[in-house]
């Protein structure tokens, strides 16, 4: 199957509109542009990281309509008409999300490179399962790799965030 073509391919622009952290953007993208590059280099949101580049590590995790995707291997046009959330969109009115607070309070990060992906993936988990067990957290988060913490503190942070969210919703 392998075939390398040297033929020059003419450029093509695809107009897309997408919502990023609640703000509508209308941009033109080329078919081969990756969502990660558009978000980081064209829109300047650098919370999302490039690391393994093969969908294994989770550092490039973004939420697309609330579901985690690897933006390093997702064509930008795929975000057409959809809602993207990056780590920059998680805090509301200057107040950190309970997951962000818990990661700080429980030492859920050291170098911080995996943290945006960790927190966004954990958000998906807590959105669909507000009271996960430790085993459920481990299973859900297994595609996000951290080289500093040994994961224990991350798991504790997510458990603590679940408690925080539960407590704040029961107050309302």
């Amino acid at each position, binding site marked *: 199957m392998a075939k390398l073509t040297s033929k020059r391919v003419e450029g093509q622009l695809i107009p897309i509109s997408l919502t990023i952290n609640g703000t509508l953007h209308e941009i033109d993208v080329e078919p081969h542009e990756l969502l990660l590059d558009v978000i980081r280099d064209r829109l300047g949101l650098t919370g999302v990281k490039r690391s393994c580049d093969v969908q294994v590590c989770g550092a490039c995790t973004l939420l697309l309509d609330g579901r*985690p995707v690897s933006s390093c291997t997702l064509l930008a046009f795929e975000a057409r008409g959809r809602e993207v959330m990056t780590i920059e969109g998680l805090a509301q009115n200057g107040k950190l999300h309970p997951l962000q607070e818990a990661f700080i309070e429980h030492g859920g990060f050291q170098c911080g490179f995996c943290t945006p992906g960790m927190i966004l993936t954990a958000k998906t988990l807590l959105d669909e399962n507000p009271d996960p067990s430790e085993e459920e957290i481990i299973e859900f988060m297994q595609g996000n790799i951290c080289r500093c913490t040994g994961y224990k503190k991350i798991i504790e942070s997510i458990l603590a965030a679940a408690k925080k969210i539960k407590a704040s919703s029961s107050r309302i």
Partner: protein
Amino acid sequence: MLKRFRLEEPESVKDASDFLARHGESARVYAGGTELLLVMKEGLIQYERLINIKNIAGLDEVKLDDGVIHLGALATHCKLASSTLLQERLPAFVQMEKNVANIRVREVGTLGGNLSFAEPHADPGTVLMVLGARLVAGKSSSSREIPVEKFFVDAYETCLEADEILTGIRVPLLPSHSAVAYLKFGYLERPSVGVALFLAVDGGGKSITDARIAVGCVGPAPRRIEEAESLLKGKGFNEASRLISKAGEIAGDASQAISDLHGSQDYKEHIVQVLLKRAFHQAYGQCQSGGKGQGGLHG
């Protein structure tokens, strides 16, 4: 980095097939990209055009159709893993889908893309082989059904014709007193060994009336191992238990295992034997408890 390519977005199988016929090997179907984009980013292969088939309506349906389960080629792994129809009818398949790669890949990757790309270290083909699945391939003016055993030709190579598109997978319902088990082993992101077993027993649970065995990941393509199946058919539990090691040895030998980063040939053949034995005990137990197609996964 990805090199520049053009994108075509047909809205029917006919139009997609026409694009493929017109552009030949310079075009490739795009159905999620979780495999394709990796090799394109590495520069191992380039296409002038990708044909995005995700705008073709109805290709992601999962439904019961006249006694056969129809899995649309564009159904994502997440959609398959959360389908209540599949949870009820094909729990072993659901269990496999839940453990494909990681949540981000499952969210974007499609079953049809997985099968058509034919990456050897993949789970679905092996399980579909023991389920007796048939793949539906469509083109401009016709479509045909391909037994899954005939679909995989070699690593990254299927029997799809240049202008054919995999549109769906048809899986017959499991008979009563039968079960499916799929066990895999791996320490890298992708599975190193996958073993699938279908077992059916008679009403009294005394003897095995049917058995299908398939091995995947160890070599270029998943393989059905009929030589090992015949050892189990017609046998009672005790006799089959005695023969299962032999069946595993035959399965390992016939699996076309190769030595690579995942392990040596001998090592993989041994793991095939171990997993088949475990799958046998799991599936037999489930047959007797009347369960249909329960399955599990270790790895």
